[in-house]
């Protein structure tokens, strides 16, 4: 098993790079778990906006409006400097800024309705529609009472009671109300790290074996051709199994309950199939590797490209229609599709579509493997 051992000796040299991807992967999952702290609700609640509010109104109407908005939204103080405000709106920490003027109650009571409040939004953002809807709803209700001849104090009291009326909203099924489990996020980012690690590890080993002098030396050795290739194959398989074991082992630590459920089992199968696909891709790309620089380049380029295009880093619904159509031609799209469908499946019996997604990833693995064979064949023919 001299080739098999040599395979792992070469891998050992790239262990630092591989470990770095594991660290980046863990950092991404921690980052996502920190930012996805949304509470899972059994009962429907409206999407809360982050509204920066400044109420200078001396009367009651401004305070009532601020109180109403605060019931279903997060009302925040407007940052003092323009740079801080720009930062907050750029990163959507504040979706909308409202400034209620000093004489708001007075002017509204006098029948003035147009352009009373100053609103600042991020151009092109959907948040402004939502805030407008809320402000319009409240002020129109107060306006109705005032138009009907009811005084401001009573109008506000009645409007506040009206605002207490809630819509009867229910979920189609109880499962819809649940938040995505931690396991979903854990498995979401695996394609990036699998592709990067496989290209870095397998690519480096294959590049050494494909080196002209090394290849020539191996060919004239007494070891049969079949045995040599079998050992390389076993090396690749053992490396893939080790990567799977490491990541499924880490899943045991971070989401053991999920992993040992039917959904977790499907996610694990999804990950294992994708790792084989990543291995095939790495094998295909290794035909083009010339030095350490190209390994790093291919590993970054393949990892990032497949991840962005396949919806690993950015949700599919954020992507344009053209991008979604093109995404069907990368395996990470089918992996992510399966990952989403696994969460909706009640159990293995409901996994009909998921098997098809697995099959699509497996077909990509086969395609990459065939392309690798073709590329090597063509290279050999050119050399002859």
């Amino acid at each position, binding site marked *: 098993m001299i080739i098999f051992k040599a395979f792992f000796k070469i891998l050992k040299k790239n262990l630092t*790079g591989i470990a770095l991807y594991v660290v980046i992967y863990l950092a991404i999952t921690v*980052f996502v778990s920190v930012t996805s702290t949304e509470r899972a609700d059994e009962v429907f609640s409206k999407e809360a906006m982050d509204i920066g509010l400044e109420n200078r109104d001396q009367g009651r109407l401004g305070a009532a409006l601020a109180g109403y908005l605060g019931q279903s939204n997060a009302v925040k103080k407007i940052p003092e400097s323009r740079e801080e405000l720009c930062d907050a709106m750029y990163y959507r920490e504040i979706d909308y800024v409202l400034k209620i003027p000093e004489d708001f109650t007075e002017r509204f009571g006098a029948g003035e309705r147009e352009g009373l409040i*100053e609103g600042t939004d991020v151009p092109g953002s959907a948040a402004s529609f939502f805030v407008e809807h809320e402000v319009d709803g409240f002020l129109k209700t107060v306006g109705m*009472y005032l138009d009907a001849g009811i005084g401001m104090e009573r109008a506000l009291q009645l409007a506040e009671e009206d605002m207490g009326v809630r819509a009867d909203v229910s979920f189609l099924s109880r499962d819809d109300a649940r938040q995505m489990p931690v396991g979903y996020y854990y498995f979401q980012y695996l394609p990036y790290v699998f592709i990067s690690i496989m290209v870095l590890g397998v690519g480096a080993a294959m590049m050494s074996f494909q080196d002209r002098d090394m290849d020539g030396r191996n060919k004239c050795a007494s070891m049969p051709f079949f045995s040599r290739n079998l050992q390389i194959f076993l090396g690749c398989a053992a490396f893939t199994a080790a990567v799977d074991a490491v990541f499924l082992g880490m899943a045991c630590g971070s989401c053991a309950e999920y992993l040992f459920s039917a959904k977790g089992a499907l996610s694990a199968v999804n990950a294992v199939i994708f790792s084989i696909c990543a291995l095939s891709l790495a094998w295909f790309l290794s035909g083009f590797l010339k030095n350490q620089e190209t390994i790093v380049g291919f590993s970054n380029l393949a990892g990032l490209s497949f991840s962005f295009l396949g919806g690993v880093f950015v949700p599919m619904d954020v992507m344009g229609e053209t991008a979604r159509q093109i995404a069907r031609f990368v395996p990470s799209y089918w992996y992510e599709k399966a990952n989403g469908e696994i969460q909706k499946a009640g159990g293995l019996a409901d996994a009909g579509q998921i098997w098809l997604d697995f099959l699509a990833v497996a077909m990509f693995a086969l395609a990459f493997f065939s392309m690798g064979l073709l590329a090597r064949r063509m290279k050999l023919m050119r050399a002859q």
Partner: protein
Amino acid sequence: MFWRLYQYSLRAMLRKKSTLFWSLAFPVVLGTLFQLTFGSHSEEFARIPVAYAAQGEVETSPFLELLDAQEGPGGLVTVRRAGRAKAEKLLREGKVEGIFLEKENGEVSLVVDEKGIGQSILSGILEQYARYASAFARIGAENPAGVRAAAEGLEKEAAYLREKGISDRPEHYFMDYFYSLLAMNCLMGMTVGVEIAANGKADLSDLAARKAASGAGRFWMILADLAAAVTGQSVCVAVSLAYLSGVLGIWLGGHYGLILLALMVGSALAVFLGAFIGVAGKWKKDVKEGICVAAMLASCFLSGLMAGGMYQVVEARAPIVNRLNPASLLVCAMRSLEIYGTYGRYARCVAALAAMTAVFGAGAYLCVRREQYDHI
């Protein structure tokens, strides 16, 4: 002497096609993919598809009239009338975002399959309907004569908000991906810096041993190599910037001269940092290149290349990292030009990059200064 060495270094760089290829291929391929992914993204409001299902024979109702009005110009929804089973099928298939169910007694409820902006707006429409109904009932009880005036007031269109944008253009944090990509392009110069260091250390390469035996001063030789590397890297980054803005049409804030300046300083930092790593320590060149790649990836990860919004998360928890991380400083410099309309933060970021370049340059020089070899 310096100019001749500089010319030769530039020529040698141009012959390393692999380095040039990756410096150019990275931003071109990833920039195109980013544009493909985010280019057609828009948060602009699109009408929400919703199904309406009535229990029993409901031909018309006040709520249906409200929905008809919401389907008109400036409305929020597109309505599909269907039986309950069909409506639920549409909801499951994602063809509608909710179902309005109207009972025979006029009560209306909403069924959704997830929580989001669209569902919240549908809930808001239903809630508003219920609130206006409640308001009319109260007005009827308190002052029946005012019902007509209230109805007229309700029908009047009023724009309570006087709106303005925080800037003239749609902004979103997706731009950080493009900025991080350009930052990564700059930081790729680190491996060039290691190469230069290896070519200057007689115990690391044959070329360096030959150079050590020559009559030219070591300081000028290394300085010429570094200057050529910074020039080459800056040209690659300028081509990337031109591709992103000129070919892909990505709006990067308009201040292209200043962006290029920041990228050139970033390239210089990368080359000098690489050179510092190359001359410091006794590790092999491969190990030093590995350190550079690890540093580049970690730096770009923290600036948001792999996870959008990472810059802000780091800013909230460990702001010092953003003040020292080269990729974050580059992202901050470019973004500040786009969104603030002022130059203060940009100047601070570029100054920090320049200061770090000077520190690493001085560090690299101190490491190789008066270095002598007993034997190689």
